[in-house]
Structures are given as C-alpha cells and as structure tokens.
C-alpha cells in the first residue's frame, strides 16, 4: 500500500512529444485542409476508382494513399475528416469537462443538498444505456455536427461529475481546507483556489480521455450514418465504406482507422504526459 507509491517512475518526455507531435500535425493539416489536401475530397472520378497507395506499381501520382470505389482521394478525405474529428473533440471535450467538472466540484465540496441533487441526477442519468440515449438524442435533434457535440456533452458529463466529486471529497478531508477556513477565505474561494488546483490533474487526464472518446463517438455515429451527410468526409463514414470493399481496396479502411487509433491514443497519452510534466507534486 505505502511502499510502492514512489516506485512508479514514468518517462514523461517521449510520450509527451510523440503524442503532442501527432496532435499538432493533425491540428495543422485540419486547419489548413484546403491548402494541404492534394485533391478535392468530394471530387469523384469513377475512371480512377480503387487506386492503391503510392508504393504500389498501379498507383497514380497525386493520390498518395489511393482512392476509394468512387475515385475520391483517401488522403484528402482523411485530412478533411480530421477537421470534423478535431472540431468535435475540441468542443465536446472541454464543454463536457466544464459542466461535469463544475457540478462534481460543487457536489464534492459543498456536500449537503447540492450533493444530494447532483448525485441523484447522475444516478438517474446513468440508468440510461448511452448508445440508445445518443441515438435517441440524434433522432430528436436531427443529424449534424452540433447534434453530435450536444449528444456527447449530455451523455458524458456524468463521468466527470462522478470522478471530480469523489476527488473533491478526498481533498476536502485534508487539513489544508480547514486551514483556508481558519485563514478566513470564503467557501467559493476555497473551492476554486485551493481544491480546484488539486483536482485539476485528474480533470486534465479525464479531459484528454474524453477528447479521444469524442473522436470515437463521432466515428461511430458517422459509421451508422447518424452524423453528417453521407458524402461529407468523416473517418467513421470512410471506415463504413471501406468495410464493404476491404478485399478489393483495404487502404480505404486502413488509413482512416489508423488515423483514428493514433488520435485517440495520442489524446490520452498527451493528458498523462502533461500531468507528469507539469504537476509540481509529481516532479
């Protein structure tokens, strides 16, 4: 229990740089997609359908990662797909963290009736199966980016609320909270300036996981065709399409899948890396 505590030594550097590097690359190409993408992601050309990637003999210049069955450039679609994925991750993640984190912090610090209301709400919320819940939500809200983001926030805030509440309660048992009270600090100030910095590492780790989850959720919803219009380039949509022609053109499935995998992994590793690097207590 006590003895293994400090023995967990992790190498912060490599993980932070690798994951950060991938995310930075992704953000850059997403931002400058119109400039970076070699082709129009929507342009179809049935004559040059299912072209293999560049290292193959049948590859054609300009279609680095090949084309899909409609002749659309895979690389360009992955790049434009990153736009959608990152938009969802960067809006849904922080929004979820903000709402769930704030409610969890209030419940865990103030306890009493605030805690009772929030905890009850979380319990009720978690009684719904999340996939059904999201499909129901999209059905009501209609498809589109906003709906996806809303669905993620509405479903996932409970995760933040629960973890942050527990952590805030643990911190509340520490005497430094009593010391802040003795010093005369207000409750609100104690919560934001004393407890929050100590909950923050947990929150950041959770947020980075959540951003990865958001990317996956977006992919799943696109996969089942509940996201953007079928045409629009999304990783999930590409994976769905690629699945149908996996024997003829594996690359249509593989590249968006790899991008998805790397991105989800990078988000979680980046969060851990940040914590390792910047948390004074771990240094």
């Amino acid at each position, binding site marked *: 229990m006590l003895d293994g505590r400090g023995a967990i030594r992790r190498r912060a550097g490599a993980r932070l740089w690798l994951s950060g590097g991938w995310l930075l690359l992704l953000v850059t190409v997403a931002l400058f997609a119109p400039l970076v993408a070699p082709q129009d992601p929507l342009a179809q050309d049935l004559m040059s359908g299912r072209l293999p990637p560049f290292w193959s003999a049948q590859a054609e210049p300009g279609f680095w990662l090949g084309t899909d069955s409609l002749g659309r450039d895979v690389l360009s679609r992955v790049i434009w797909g990153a736009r959608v994925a990152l938009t969802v991750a960067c809006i849904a993640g922080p929004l979820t963290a903000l709402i769930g984190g704030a409610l969890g912090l209030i419940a865990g610090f103030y306890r009493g009736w605030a805690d009772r209301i929030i905890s009850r709400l979380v319990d009720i919320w978690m009684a719904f199966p999340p996939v059904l819940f999201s499909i129901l939500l999209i059905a009501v809200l209609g498809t589109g980016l906003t709906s996806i983001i809303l669905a993620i926030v509405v479903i996932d805030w409970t995760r933040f609320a629960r973890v942050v509440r527990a952590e805030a309660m643990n911190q509340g048992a*520490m*005497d*430094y909270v*009593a*010391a*802040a*009270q*003795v*010093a*005369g*600090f*207000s*409750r609100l100030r104690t919560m934001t300036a*004393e407890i929050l*910095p*100590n909950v*923050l590492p947990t929150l950041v780790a959770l947020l980075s996981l959540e951003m990865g989850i958001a990317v996956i959720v977006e992919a799943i919803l696109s996969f089942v065709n509940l996201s953007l219009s079928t045409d629009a380039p999304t990783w999930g949509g590409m994976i769905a399409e690629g699945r149908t022609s996996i024997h003829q053109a594996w690359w249509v499935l593989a590249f968006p899948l790899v991008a998805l995998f790397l991105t989800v992994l990078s988000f979680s590793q980046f969060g851990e890396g940040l914590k390792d690097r910047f*948390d*004074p*207590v771990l240094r």
Partner: protein
Amino acid sequence: MDDARPLIEVENLRLSLPDLAGKPLIGPAPKLEILKGLSFAIPRGAVLGIVGGSGSGKSTLGRALIRLLEPSGGAIRFDGQDITHLPEADLRPLRRRMQMIFQDPLSSLNPRRRVGGIIGGPLRLHGFDAIDRRVDEALDHVGLPRSFRSRYPHELSGGQRQRVGIARAIALRPDFILADEIVSGLDVSSQAQVLNLLEGLVADLGLTLAFISHDLSVIRRLCRNVLVLHRGEIVEHAPTAQVFAAPRAAYTRELLDAIPLPDPDQPWG
C-alpha cells in the same frame, strides 16, 4: 474593552459527531459524543497547556474553540462575543484573530501551492501591506531560509513543514493561537527556537495560547496552567507546578510515570 475578562470562555461545551462506522444501511449515522461538557477559561496573554491521552478529544476541542466544528451544546465566547453557533460569514471578520496550527503538517499545507503563497495568501486576504517582507520575517522567525518561499510542501522535511504551518499562523499577528502538537516533530534546537518565539509573542504582544502537547517537559516550561483531558472530560485543571508536584487525577500520574527520560539506566516501568 474589559481587560479583566478572559479572552476565551467555555461553558459546558458539548460536541457530537456522526459515527460513520456505526451507520446502518439506511438512516442517519448515530452520534458519538466526543466532548462531554467542558468548562474553562483562558485569560488574555495566558498559555494553557492541554494534555491527555490519544483520542481524548484534544484536537476536537481545538477545532471547536476556533469554530472549525460547531458545538452541539454549551457556549464558547471569544473576547466576550458568543461564537458558539455563529455562521461562517459572521466568523470571517474574527478569523484573523484566532489561528490554529494543525497536528498533521503535510495535510495542512496545500500540495500545489508554494510556501510563499501559503504564508502570504492569508496576509493578502486580510489587507496587510508589504506581504513579501512579512513572509520573509515569518520564515526568519521559525528558522527557515527565505529561499524556501519558492518550494512546494513536498519538497520540505517534516519539521520544515511544521514550521511553515507555524509561520503562517504567527504572520497574521493573531490574538489567539491554538497549537496542536506542534513541536513533537522538531529537533530540540528548532523546538527551543519555536518555543522561545511563542513565549516572546506572549510576552511582547499579549498573545493568548492554547498548547496541545504530549511532551510534558515542554508543557512544564511553557504553560502556567494545564488542563488534563480524559475521554472528553476534564479530569484536572490546575497550575502547572501543582500538577507536576502533586497530580490529583490517577491518569495524570500515569502520564508522568510513562515519560522516558534520556538516560538508558533509568528504570522505566
């Protein structure tokens, strides 16, 4: 103001806390009475020693005195004002004047705040000027180098942390300090320095001190009166000299007998 009046008056103080270990599956936890009707007073500028067995309620009494806990019965008056059930907002103006130094040093310091902020934060809140100078002075007083301002609590040794807690309390120039077991983690030299500091504050600034300690040699040196607590009740409250010369309660005698003298040849029970 009436100077003859004790700074702290406690009358029939009772305190119960919910006992989570005994909580039934449904329904509220049963109450556990921890302080069972204590009455005493601490005159201005006096030093009261509080001793007693482990779990006898000393820290709980301390937390009640500075109103971190709300008593369930009786009354506490601070400087004539009844603070027994005062809501937190009304206590805030009094906070600077009554300070506590906690028993567990690491837990009482915010792990993600530097020493400078830990000592300076409360000063800023209460509108002190020249915060930096005051922080430096406080560190000087407790014998820590000024460079420690930029350290985090986990970068200090146990005794150094304890002294940061002491510095935080004295920097506010309070009228009353409750010191909960503050010297047991210090070497004799630092101990002497802290005790001399506190004695100086008592003598020069009229500080009133309640000093919880297991170390009877320290109590004997510092306190004029001693209060012996046993299972939430006062079993003895008398001038220090009298307690040491002729302990009335059996429990006090037991305490005296159990002190290990620094001498390998002294027989010890």
